[in-house]
């Protein structure tokens, strides 16, 4: 299968296509080249769900070697900093990635928060005349430490912590999840859906994106609220108008998480799987539709 030209409507073995793209070092690139953490995690999860143990074993070997001394993971080994991808790795079962390695990742995630929620930062901004001193911000998660929280990394972190909470109930973890969910709900756009960050910029409302809407809905799986209904309706509309496989995947996963996925909606004939994450998430969605949910567990 020619990777770049794979249409979502083609009936080919996607797990096999995914396995064929594994690099010699056990990881996956986004499209070609060196291995990165994000595509490697998605590919490992997808092949775990389809019962391909050997590529999963090699992927886990690559991931274990990439863990940094602080317990986090870098986007790729060349980058000397742990980032949001740590939470993606934590989606993997602890017995696969290693109990201790997984526990260190959870600690790293739990200790991470958007810079804007830091009390000292808020007081400093207030003293500099950058707005009123607000009550404590519900903390989300940043892409990179030392920066603000955003919808996508917050959603990924919430999914990791929720899986961990189910394995090991913990009041502090539960509280952190509650606050993270509040972060997402507070950033919902007027009328539903999520942009990648705030629901307004300089007083102008922002427009929701289909991919972040789907991902946020997935992260808010257990949440029942009127605002979720509006976002679910929007997600269903976006699904029918979808222009990218990335959005197609996240919308389906988000709607499936709330049991609102209309499986009769088909992708446009020219929608292409252009990257490893898109291919892997398509595999994961197919598996979830058959009852094998590797993201939620």
């Amino acid at each position, binding site marked *: 299968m020619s990777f770049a030209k794979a249409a979502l409507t083609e009936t080919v073995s996607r797990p096999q296509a995914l396995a064929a793209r594994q690099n010699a070092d056990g990881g996956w690139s986004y499209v070609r080249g060196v291995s990165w953490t994000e595509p490697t995690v998605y590919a490992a999860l997808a092949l775990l769900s389809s019962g391909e143990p050997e590529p999963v074993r090699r992927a886990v070997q690559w991931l274990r070697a990439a863990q940094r001394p602080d317990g986090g993971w870098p*986007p790729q080994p060349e980058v000397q900093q742990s980032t949001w991808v740590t939470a993606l790795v934590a989606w993997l079962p602890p017995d696969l990635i290693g109990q201790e390695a997984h526990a260190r990742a959870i600690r790293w995630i739990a200790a991470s928060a958007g810079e804007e929620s830091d009390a000292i930062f808020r007081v400093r901004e207030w003293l500099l005349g950058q707005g009123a001193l607000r009550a404590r911000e519900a903390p989300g998660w940043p*892409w990179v430490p030392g*920066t603000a929280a*955003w919808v996508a990394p917050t959603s990924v972190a919430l999914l990791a912590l929720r899986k961990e909470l189910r394995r090991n109930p913990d009041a502090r973890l539960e509280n952190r999840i509650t606050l993270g969910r509040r972060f997402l709900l507070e950033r919902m756009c007027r009328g539903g859906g999520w942009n990648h960050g705030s629901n307004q910029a300089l007083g*102008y409302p922002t427009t929701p994106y289909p991919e972040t809407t789907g991902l946020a809905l997935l992260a808010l799986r257990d949440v029942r609220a009127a605002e979720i209904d509006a976002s679910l309706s929007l997600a269903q509309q976006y699904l029918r108008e979808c222009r*990218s496989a990335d959005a197609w995947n996240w919308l389906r996963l988000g709607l499936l998480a709330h049991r609102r996925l209309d499986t009769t909606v088909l992708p446009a004939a020219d929608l*292409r799987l252009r990257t490893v994450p898109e291919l892997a998430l398509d595999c994961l969605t197919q598996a979830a539709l058959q009852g094998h949910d590797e993201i939620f567990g």
Partner: protein
Amino acid sequence: MPAPVSIVRAPAYDQRLYETVRRLLAEHRLNVRGRTVVLKPNLVEFEPQSTINTHPLLVHAIYEAFRAMGAAEVRIAEGPGHRRNTLDLADAAGYFHTVPRFEETFVDLNLDDVTRVRLARQVSQIEKLYLPNTALRADLLVSIPKMKTHHWTGATLSMKNLFGLVPGGVYGWPKNMLHWAGINESIVDLHTAFPRQFAIVDGIVGMEGNGPIQGTAKYAGVLVAGRDVRAVDATCCRIMGIDPMKIAYLQPHTPADASLRAEDIRQLGETVAATATPFALIREFQGLRLASPA
């Protein structure tokens, strides 16, 4: 003294652009024979009918011109800051339709192999930055922005366009660390990290008001180009009715930064006065208004 800046009239996105661009580049005597050229347009959102993205016909005209000039390799590369699905974005913006074999030519800078670079001159709080190898290895980096206002910096032109070089695969979507390091300061540092640059600004139809996304289309009918990217941006500002002396990232940060006063920039082609087209500014930026275009 800044290098010369060209202003040429370009009435529309049509076949005349190919000859216009060839003449424009010939004016600046760029030697790209046997070299690698990377074209960096501005791709932002899935809005093909809007003026958010650099027009694909202009990019293709520039691509063909550099090939005709003997460049060994010409790549089109971008790393959008808001949307991760870059190829879909490019498709929606018309690049697949307009540029033959686009996918073979294009590099998603967000997902490119990276090298850690220690900035030679640091104005922002960024000490080191992971940058995409495709851009670092270019013999000539050509910034091809849209002529737009910007709700944080006042204007987004050739220098601000370099934000798309910072890989989202490392820093996320958006590249928020640039904001935390100081937007204007980061623009300056990124510009310094790429010493071999050329700029061609798509000012045929730009964006005014609440740019760079939610503004409205503004016809200016020009291309503005030159090796001195600061001078190109200063010229664009004047055409837009913005005082470049009030744009923070254009201000000199070292004694080596040339003056951007109008009288210190050698304009080729049209004059600023003849092409001036004041762009509407949001209320917060009314203070950037230029007193007179010349």
